């Protein structure tokens, strides 16, 4: 008995330790970015274009660029990913071909992001002739987050109890009505969780947009989806690796990082809101 109690004590101890480390790390990141970044943030920082080799002015074009790229990526990846997931879980026969598709999608999730960047350069920028643009970057980011969205959606769909499908079909609903009106709404919270994670990833990645969408500096805001843009992650990268005023640039980089965090939080907030709205019908 005593021995078991001791094992339990250490077991719980380890669990507490793990959660403390995780929370502290997260806290530390937010703390340092906030402390270092808050100094440069003011209205001008958010609304103006950069001046004097990035040391003055604001980061508005990068903010707008990242926003467009992220929304574009989701607009592409969500319908595509959802369609794939619906096919794979609801319609596809259990065949070896479908299994190969499943494995491929999972492997796609493990491909390094810079590879997606090169793919986007070859396919969207060059082959389709979209050039270095919001469109190319969004599509590249979209393909990068596609596997994540597919798996999240698949898991959410599989988690919908078979009994709900049966109930709907037994009422004389077609399979499509069942999916559209019963299965998808029930799976929505899980799907949106996948979307939230993907938003963070799409907004924060540098490699996929480096060759496909971003530029170091633009005078103003993009006019069309075929314009190249500035983006926050790349802006941070550029500030930290180039230029002649490292101290001032580092401060701005922290400011950008803080804004990036905030932006991700905001876009995710929309998804979280939608998720809560659906969840009100789940058991309280």
């Amino acid at each position, binding site marked *: 008995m005593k021995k078991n109690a001791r094992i339990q004590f250490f077991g719980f101890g380890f669990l507490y330790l793990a959660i403390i480390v995780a929370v502290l790390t997260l806290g530390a990141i937010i703390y340092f970015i906030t402390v270092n970044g808050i100094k440069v943030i003011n209205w001008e920082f958010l609304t103006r274009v950069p001046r004097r080799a990035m040391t003055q002015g604001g980061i508005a074009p990068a903010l707008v660029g990242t926003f467009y790229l992220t929304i574009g990526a989701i607009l592409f990846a969500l319908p595509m990913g959802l369609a794939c997931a619906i096919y794979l879980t609801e319609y596809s026969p*259990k065949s070896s071909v479908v299994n190969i598709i499943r494995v491929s999608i999972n492997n796609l999730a493990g491909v390094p992001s810079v590879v997606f960047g090169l793919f986007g350069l070859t396919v969207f920028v060059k082959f389709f002739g979209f050039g270095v643009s919001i469109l190319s970057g969004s599509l590249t980011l979209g393909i990068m987050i596609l596997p994540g969205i597919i798996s999240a959606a698949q898991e959410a769909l599989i988690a919908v*109890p*078979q*009994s*709900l*499908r*049966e*109930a*709907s*079909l*037994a*009422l*004389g*609903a*077609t399979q499509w*009505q069942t999916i559209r*009106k*019963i299965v998808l*709404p*029930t799976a929505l919270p899980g799907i949106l969780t996948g979307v939230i994670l993907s938003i963070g990833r799409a907004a924060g990645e540098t490699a996929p947009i480096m060759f496909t969408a971003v530029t170091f500096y633009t005078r103003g805001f993009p006019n069309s989806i075929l314009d190249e843009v500035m983006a926050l992650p790349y802006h941070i990268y550029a500030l930290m690796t180039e230029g002649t005023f490292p101290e001032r640039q580092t401060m701005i980089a922290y400011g950008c990082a803080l804004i990036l965090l905030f932006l991700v939080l905001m876009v995710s907030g929309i998804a979280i809101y939608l998720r809560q709205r659906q969840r*009100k*019908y*789940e*058991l*309280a």
Partner: protein
Amino acid sequence: MNLPEEVRIQTKNVDFYYSDKQTLKNVNMAIYKNRVTAIIGPSGCGKSTFIRLLNRMNDLIPNTRVEGQVILDNKNIYDQDIDVVALRRKVGMVFQKPNPFPKSIRDNLSYGLTINGLNDKELIEKTVRRSLEEAALWEEVKDRLHESALRLSGGQQQRLCIARCLVVEPEVILFDEPCASLDPISTKRIEELIEQLKENYTIVIVTHNMQQAARVSDYTAFMYLGELIEFGPTEKIFTVPEDKRTEEYISGKFG
């Protein structure tokens, strides 16, 4: 009860295979109109498989095969040209575990109408009320139709599922162990409900509870190892069964 009665569904030489395993063997049975037919038998005897054949719910299970005929309105429901959606509208089903949709009570009921393209709000409200009254649930939920159906108790959820089934006005209702997860009081209410429903509907109920079969049904079928051992008026099955296995099962010698 006067024989002969009107047959609503007739199964002819029905076999069912799950992969290579045969789980129903040559089942011939009649379901009579406006009567309650109970199907009893030990676990794994094929009673659930059988009832799910009657509205083709087994179609959803991969690697299964049906042979023989299930005749409804002079047609074999397993014919190529049968509209399964229309069939299921005619033959509704209530499941073992209450399975309301994670929607409001009202939406659970209106679903059966909206999938048929019905949008008339007044008619929907009327149908919602009628079905809830028919399922003896109206008084309990009339002030909270907008609330999640999942907040209801298990017994209420099951009556909601019955109401949901009634909305589409089926002719036959299949109950697959509807009280298996309910307490005795909820069970009693469902049984009373079934008693009332048979005036307007033809009812088939699978149950592992012999007292329940004796209480609610007019006809009883005893199944064992995929075979229909005995079928007849409930009174006769429970008092003077012809087959020894039926007698042993009913007297609790196995099960």
